[in-house]
């Protein structure tokens, strides 16, 4: 099959440096105890922990690395054998499996011997309940407290009483975190972290927005990698510095008409989780067909425009309650429809991820409803985020090729 040429993202060097800084700082803290370490779910109350001087480690990010380098396939069966079903979140099973085996990809990547030991485990059920079960496993292992937020999901509108409840839960965390941190909470520091994090959101959203250009500046696969700092370094100025560099590069692409996919003919929307171990294969398949996955819900999930340093607790509560994954299908469909329009999309791709029901949105008729509403076809790919036992490469390629043929023939 034909070799796919790609335009390399120059900022990758700086990207690697920010990610390395994140992990090396954590490692140092875990070894020297110079700082406390909080483990946090990806859309958990990270800003609050940062303001109290914690370094924040994201267990889902670790799991995504296991997916990307496919070692997840060695670890999932270990967790399965320990009573964690193959039908539940394969982030959780890969991560717990790796822990049980005593291995981490951070060793090879950064020379880090062990994952940084937590002083506290944080979660928010705004995305799914799995994160709660996940931290509870580690709570027993490391004998550290679990502190978190229970957010209701499937909301049509984020109700004020829900925001009040989450605000109260956030406020309640403060004394517990102060005790673990060994220092008092300072509202001004919190405001500052929130402002920095909001700026990260703004920059990341602008980065993603450059793909509205024709041809699109970046693909979904690129965005999945480069969103790293928005996930793990949000609230830190280094992330913002990185996104300024990336943004400048992508703006230059827009000006010069450089696309991520040579000769772009089709623009797709990706709904659902990435298939981490197959990012390259997917981008090659799309690239060969001159199709660009220009926008996704997933990569936009780390945009929290609602943060307001003037009203830090309540605005943070509202922002974390308003994430896409917590909405009902009506809200989700409006969101996708708007993006389809903004990014001039001509096909929807849904990933039915076997082990992540919370972030799989095609199981209740959405794909058909959106195709009808928007007048564009859809394709459902059966796969998984990390468990490649649930994925057929050959079937997926045939489906994508047939989808492109269908669009070209109509």
């Amino acid at each position: 099959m034909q070799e796919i040429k790609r335009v390399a993202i120059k900022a990758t060097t700086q990207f690697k440096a920010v990610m390395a800084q994140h992990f090396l700082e954590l490692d140092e803290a875990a070894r020297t105890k110079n700082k406390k370490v909080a483990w946090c779910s990806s859309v958990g109350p990270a800003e609050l922990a940062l303001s109290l001087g914690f370094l924040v480690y994201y267990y889902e990010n670790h799991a995504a690395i296991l997916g990307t380098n496919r070692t997840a396939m060695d670890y999932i069966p270990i967790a399965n054998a320990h009573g964690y079903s193959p039908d539940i979140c394969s982030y959780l099973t890969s991560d717990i499996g790796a822990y049980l085996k005593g291995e981490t990809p951070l060793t090879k990547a950064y020379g880090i011997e062990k994952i940084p030991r937590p002083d506290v485990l944080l979660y928010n059920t705004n995305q799914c309940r799995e994160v709660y079960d996940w931290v509870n496993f580690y709570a027993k292992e490391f004998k550290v407290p679990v502190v978190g937020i229970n957010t209701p999901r499937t909301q049509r509108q984020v109700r004020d009483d829900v925001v009040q409840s989450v605000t109260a839960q956030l406020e309640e965390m403060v004394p517990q975190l102060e005790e673990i941190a060994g220092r008092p909470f300072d509202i001004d520091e919190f405001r500052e972290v929130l402002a920095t994090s909001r700026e990260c959101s703004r920059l990341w959203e602008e980065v993603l927005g450059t793909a509205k250009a024709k041809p699109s500046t970046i693909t979904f696969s690129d965005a999945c990698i480069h969103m790293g700092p928005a996930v793990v370094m949000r609230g830190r100025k280094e992330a913002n510095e990185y996104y300024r560099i990336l943004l400048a590069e992508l703006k230059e692409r827009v000006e010069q008409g450089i696309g991520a996919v040579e000769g772009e003919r089709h623009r797709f929307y990706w709904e659902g989780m990435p298939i981490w171990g197959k990012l390259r294969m997917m981008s090659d398949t799309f690239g060969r067909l001159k199709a660009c996955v220009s926008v996704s819900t997933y990569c936009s999930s780390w945009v929290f425009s609602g943060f307001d340093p003037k009203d830090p607790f309540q605005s943070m509560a509202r922002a974390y309650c308003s994430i896409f994954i917590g909405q009902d299908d009506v809200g989700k469909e409006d969101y996708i429809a708007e993006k389809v329009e903004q990014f001039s999309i001509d096909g929807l791709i849904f990933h039915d991820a076997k082990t992540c029901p919370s972030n799989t949105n095609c199981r209740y008729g959405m794909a058909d409803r959106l195709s009808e509403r928007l007048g564009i076809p859809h394709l459902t790919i059966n796969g998984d985020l990390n468990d490649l036992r649930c994925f057929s490469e050959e079937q997926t390629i045939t489906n994508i090729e047939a989808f492109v043929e269908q669009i070209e023939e109509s």
Partner: protein
Amino acid sequence: MGLYAGIDIGSCTTKAVVVDQEGNMVGSHVCRSGIDYQKAVEEALGTALGGKWDGIPILSTGYGRHSLEFASGTKTEIACHARGAFAYVPRALTLVDIGGQDNKVIKLDDKGHRLDFRMNRKCAAGTGTFIEEIATRIGIPLEQMDGMARKAEKRVKIGSYCTVFAQTEILSLIRAGVSPEEVARGVFESVVDRVMEMIPLADLVMLCGGVVAHNPVVVDIFKARVSGEVIVPPHPQLTGAYGAALIARESFG
């Protein structure tokens, strides 16, 4: 000479069809794919053409479509089945292809354009492999399954997707006194159930694929279940290869 060939390299069988300048089918052959595609392709094409294929435009499709170096082009089996079906009946229709290891449902409008398609290859459920596995397990030769199923007096339901679960289910049916004929019928009913779960079937439905070609009972079951008209093309197993040959003629003629 004006000949065009289509080759459909499936995971179970390889099918070749040759058409003339007018699109008439002038040769065809079906053989098992085995593990050596190249050999299967040579046999299928060589027999369909009755000789060498130098200079003849060939379009390849199916699971192994990208592994054929001498093909003039490739298309997915979805595109080729759609083309083949529409050549038989140029009307809006839903095509159901039940193959050895997958099945597909393709919706076409009255111009032959594809509106939607679904493929099922998550497991053996609803495919020829399911029938084959169960037949082996219950000790009925595959070629006798159709004849036996026709003799069934009542309908029994086999609910499991999974071939292993289905086998245990069948064993308990047999213990409960269900006849082998009814079990055979139940196996085909199950295949139809899986297809009906993929997309709503209505109006004009065309059935094709190896399972349909070798087991006409499947057609009867669909006829009993679908409200619209159910038809079968002249060579159900060759629909994809025929479509590929027609596309070769349109693209390289």
